[in-house]
Structure formats: C-alpha cells, structure tokens
C-alpha cells in the first residue's frame, strides 16, 4: 500500500508540528508514507472565494504529485473534501478520478482503512472536540445533529482509546466556528462573534484543550484565545494521537 502524505499549504508554512505529528503517527502505525516534494495547496482558497478558474494550476499540481499513490492522507478534512467535491473543474482523467476517490482525512484513514482504533496514545487532559464542518457534513466523519440516524464520530472513536483523555460535551455539538476561509476576513464581525461563542461553549464545558481535524478552524480559535488571554490550548487531532505523555 503506497500512501502519499498531503500537508496543506498553511500547515506546511505555519503549523509544521501538525505535519510532523501526522507523519510520525502514520509511521508508528507501520504505514509506508511517501511525501512528494512538489506539493503546494489543494486550491480551495481561490475556489471558495469564487475564483475556481484561478485554482486549476493548483489542482493539476496536486494530481501530478499524488497520482502514483494508492491512498492520499491529509490532516485536513477541508482539503480532502475539496479534492473530492470540487476537482470536477479539470478533465476527469483516470488519474484525477483515482486521486479524488482515494484522498482521505487522517482519522478516517486510520479508522476505516487501517482499521485501527487504539493508536497507543496517552494524553491525560479534558478535550473539547471541534467538529470541523467540511469533515463533518462534507466527508461525513461523524453524524451531525440535523440528520436523523445512528450517532457516530470517527474522531471521538479514536480519542476514546487515548489513555487518560476525557472528552467534554458542548451545548452546541457541531456548530461552525466561523473560520470559513476568506469569510474570516470578508465577514470579520460575524466570523469573530462565531469564534468567540464557540470558545465560550468550550470554556463552559470545562475543556482544557480544543482539538479538530482541521488546523484552519483551530488557527481562527487560537487567534481569538491568544488575543483574549483565555485558558485554553488548541492541538490538532494528529498531535494528540501522536502524544505519549
């Protein structure tokens, strides 16, 4: 099984520790991980801003880098969703459809492809899970409160096996944090208010750490937490699953 690691642009440049945790975790789980050196971005920032046509170069670059792999794994539900859902703007060659079919968010990959629940991590803290929307409602990494059906959450299934981890309960289990890419800037007032409310919900639930499948949501929340000097930390799910404190 050839697995290609996709590290999204902003994680690569601003949060390398998330990429490091991801690759270390996958290697711990005996996955043969390849990291193609020419990767940049999935193209989402332009596409979600209405400039899909400016993202074609990024899409092609992505496919070029990952066409050889059986699976593409990324610590970002949002980017995986973008490749799956919006790569219909380039010709649908077998390489493109293969890439779209086989791109996986990290937790989804560990639980459903590797079939591993207990990754051997220990993290004795109260953890608040932020269910990032694109992973939740786009990739269906968990059930969401609007839809009637069986309740499940891949991220929580993995966290439940982490030694010492205690999951807290939010009053609004799966509300968006307000990041939304360029939305965070173009709709600043709403974005900030949504983030503040989300943080308050986590504080009320007694969480010490907020985690998510997406660093982008966490970057937005962390920006507010740090500015307002609030007693919360953010860690990507890969960092928790890779820890052994």
């Amino acid at each position, binding site marked *: 099984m050839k697995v290609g690691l996709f*590290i999204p*642009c902003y994680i*690569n*440049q*601003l*949060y*390398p520790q998330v*990429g*490091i945790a991801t690759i270390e975790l996958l290697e711990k789980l005996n996955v043969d991980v390849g990291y193609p*050196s*020419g990767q*940049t*971005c999935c193209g989402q*920032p*332009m596409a*979600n*801003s*209405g*400039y*899909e046509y*400016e*993202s*074609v*170069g*990024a899409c*092609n670059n992505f496919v070029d880098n990952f066409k050889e792999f059986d699976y593409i794994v990324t610590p970002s539900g949002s980017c995986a969703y973008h490749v799956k859902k*919006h790569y219909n703007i380039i010709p649908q060659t077998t390489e493109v459809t293969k890439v779209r079919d086989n791109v996986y968010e990290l937790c989804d990959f560990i639980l459903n492809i590797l079939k591993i629940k207990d990754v051997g991590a220990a993290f004795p803290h109260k953890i608040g899970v932020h269910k990032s*929307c*694109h992973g*939740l*409602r786009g990739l269906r990494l968990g059930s969401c*409160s*609007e*839809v*009637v*059906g069986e309740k499940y959450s891949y991220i929580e299934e993995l966290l439940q096996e982490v030694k010492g981890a205690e999951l807290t309960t939010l009053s609004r289990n*799966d*509300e*968006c944090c*307000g990041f*939304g*890419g360029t*939305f965070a*800037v*173009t*709709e*600043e*007032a*709403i*974005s*900030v*208010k*949504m983030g503040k*409310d989300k943080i308050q919900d986590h504080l009320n639930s007694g969480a010490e750490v907020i985690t998510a499948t997406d660093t982008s949501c966490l*970057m937005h929340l*962390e*920006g*507010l937490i*740090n*500015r307002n000097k609030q007693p919360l930390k953010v860690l990507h799910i890969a960092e928790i699953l890779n820890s052994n404190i």
Partner: protein
Amino acid sequence: MSHSKLASIFNKDEKRVDWHDKALWFVRHKRDLSVHNVKGWEELRNLGHGIKAHMLSNLDNYLIQFEENAKKNGVQVHWAADADEHNKIVLQILKENNAKKIVKSKSMLTEECHLNPCLEADGIEVIDTDLGERIVQLAKETPSHIVLPAIHKNRHEVDELFQEHLGTKPCDGDPQYLTGEARKHLRTKFIQADAALTGVNFAVADTGGFVVCTNEGNADMGAHLAPVHIASMGVEKIIPKQEHLGVFLRLLARSATGQPITTYSSHFKKPRKGVKMHIVIVDNGRSEQLSRPDFRASLHCIRCGACMNTCPIYRRSGGHSYDATIPGPIGSILSPGKDLTKHSTLPFASTLCGSCSDVCPVKIDIHSQLYKWRQIITKETPQPFVKKQAMKAMGNIFAHPNRFETVGKIARWSLRNLPKAMINSKPNVWGHTRDLPLGPEKSFDQWFKDRENDKKS
C-alpha cells in the same frame, strides 16, 4: 450595502446578537427534538425532494391541471408574469368589488411583489394580520424572517410600538397583555374587511384546492368573514396530488417550529355561497430560475425557515442584513437569480458549513448552490481589483512549488520578526481581533528534507 457591512452594524450591540442567536437556536433545537422522534424522517425528506423534483420537471402540465380543476370548483384563476402584473390583478379585483379595507395573512410572495405600498397608493387600507407581520408593519419595516417576521424585535420594543399605534398602556412588555390587545385590534379589522388576501402553502393539481398554514388562524378569520378571497401563489407551490400533502405538512411544521403540524392547516377548494374566490399564479423570475440547472432545486423550497434557524451566520447577523425579501441561506441562492449585482455579497455570507443543506426538509443542496453562485458572481459582476489580483497571484504561487516555497519563507520570517503593531496594522483584518500564529523557523518541507538528509548521513 454589502451583507458584511450590515452584519457588522447589527453586531455592534452584542447583547442583541446573543439574544437573537439564542431565540433562533431555541427553535432549531425544538426542531431537532421533534424530528428525531419521527421514524422515517429521512425517507420523508427524500419523498419531499422527489415530489418537488418531479413537479418542477412537469410544472407546465400540473399548473394547467390545477387551473382546470380550480375553475371547475368555481374559482377564478389569474396568471401574472411578474410582480407588477400580480399587483395590477389584485388591485383590479379589489376595485371590481369596491373593496377599500383588506386583511392579509402571511405571504412572502406579496412581500416579494411589494403589494402593500402599491395598494396603499390607491387608498386601500392593508392590514397584515399575522401578529409578527403586524408588528413589522407598524414599525414600517420588512419581515426579518419568513416564519418569525418580527424575531429581531424584543417585547419591550413591541410594547412601545403598540402604545404609539394602538394606544395600549405601558405594560413592561407583558406578552399576555400585548397579545390580548393585538387580538382586539385585529378582530375589529377582520370584521370590517372587504376582502381577504392569503398566501398559498400548497396548491393541489388534481383537486384544484389549496392549503394555507398558519399558527394564529388569521388566514381563516380573514377568508371566512370577507366576501372576497384572493390567494397569491408562486408557480412552484404546486404539488401533484392531494395525498402528497401528508408528506409536506409533516415536513413543514416540524422543520419550521418543531410542531407536529401547524395549528391551522386550512384547505380551500371552492367559494362559499355569495363569496368570490380568486387565485393569482405568479412567475416573477421563477421560470428563469428553473432554467438554471445548478439552481433549479432552490424552487423546492417550502418556506419553513429551518435553514435560517440553523445558520450560524443568519443567527448572528439578523435577517435585515441580507437586504432581500427572503433572507438567510435559501434567500442567498434565490436572490442572485433576481438581481445578481444587488445580491452579489449574499452567497459569500456563509462559511459553507453545510448545516442548511442537512436541515432542509426537501434536501435542497443550499451550500453547494452558494458555492456555484460565487463562481458566477466573480465573473459577471464587478469585483474589487485587489481581490482579483490577490486570487490571481495565489493561483500562480500554488501552481508552482518553487514560488510557494519562496513566499512561505518570507511570510514565516515576517511573522517571526516584524513588530506586532506592523503585523496587526489596519489592512490586516485578521489581526484586528485575532492573533496570527508565530512564524516557525522551518516549514514542514524543510523539516522533512532535513530528516531525510539525517537518515542518509
């Protein structure tokens, strides 16, 4: 004004935002409690979606069938291509009947057509009889929500409005007293009315009948007392068969307010003796929307308002920030079809979180349509030069790994070394209220290269 500007004005009063958000979340939560108890809820949604899709594919035939059956029942049927024609037809009917005082039950279509000012200009007294609508009418405002039109107003504001317009006593916003006074006021209007106008929630092709849903019974009081009943309906309100009502009535009330069924689901079929019944069937841009394959499913909408209640942006920006007859997520995919330039910011008033699509009882892919409108808007309406150039530059950088590496290096260095005051200066909107991450020394790329080299050595 853009959605973002209007929303930031609404957000200046954080307490009001909190209260607005909580009030609507309460309704969304009630909806959850209600639908999670219904066995086969998702199947009902599929059915609703399927019936609407089938109806839209055969719209012409069902409309003709409806007209034939309605006429057989003794109802007069009128066709209006647009808002202007609709208003003229209504005015004509009123004039023919010498009607000077009109009671109206809730109808977003007549809002869309701006019927009230048009009738008032002709000296007709128009009274909105839904309590929320009456409140916004007295305040000379438009509804900020399609099911809860006055949700942006608190009881103290209603108290003041009633004192001013209905001569009530100050009551510290006592809801019971205010409702009682509204009831007295509206009953006088019902008794005096020369004609009643209602909307149409569902028009049934195979019977020619139609259903109007209200929680206050105001449509019934109007229509049962007045000698003329005019019902305005959008072309998409048609459903093929009477038996389909069972699907939609169950979906509508639960999605709207968490009720098992709306308090009054009144079926109208033929006029009572000595009473005239008219139906005005209105297109007003709907067939144009139908012609857009990516957006036609927006016409499935049964106007339950669930997408507004669930939308974290709507809850925190207020309905008026959308500056459109139908606000919120569904409005943001309907309005650009009417006027792309005026409503060009609405599809961007979303994080594309997808909650609207998942809550929608007839499974409209709202967030996907928002995404699709964005692509059209940036091509067909004027965009800020800076945004266009920035997107072009980003596209270019991300298409070329070497350029990405260089830009990344500069960004990390700046975040690490530049003074905070410079980083968080005015043009950096992010930095107004949020910190940026501290730029790390090494990118992941660099870390990986170093590790590979270490392995070799």
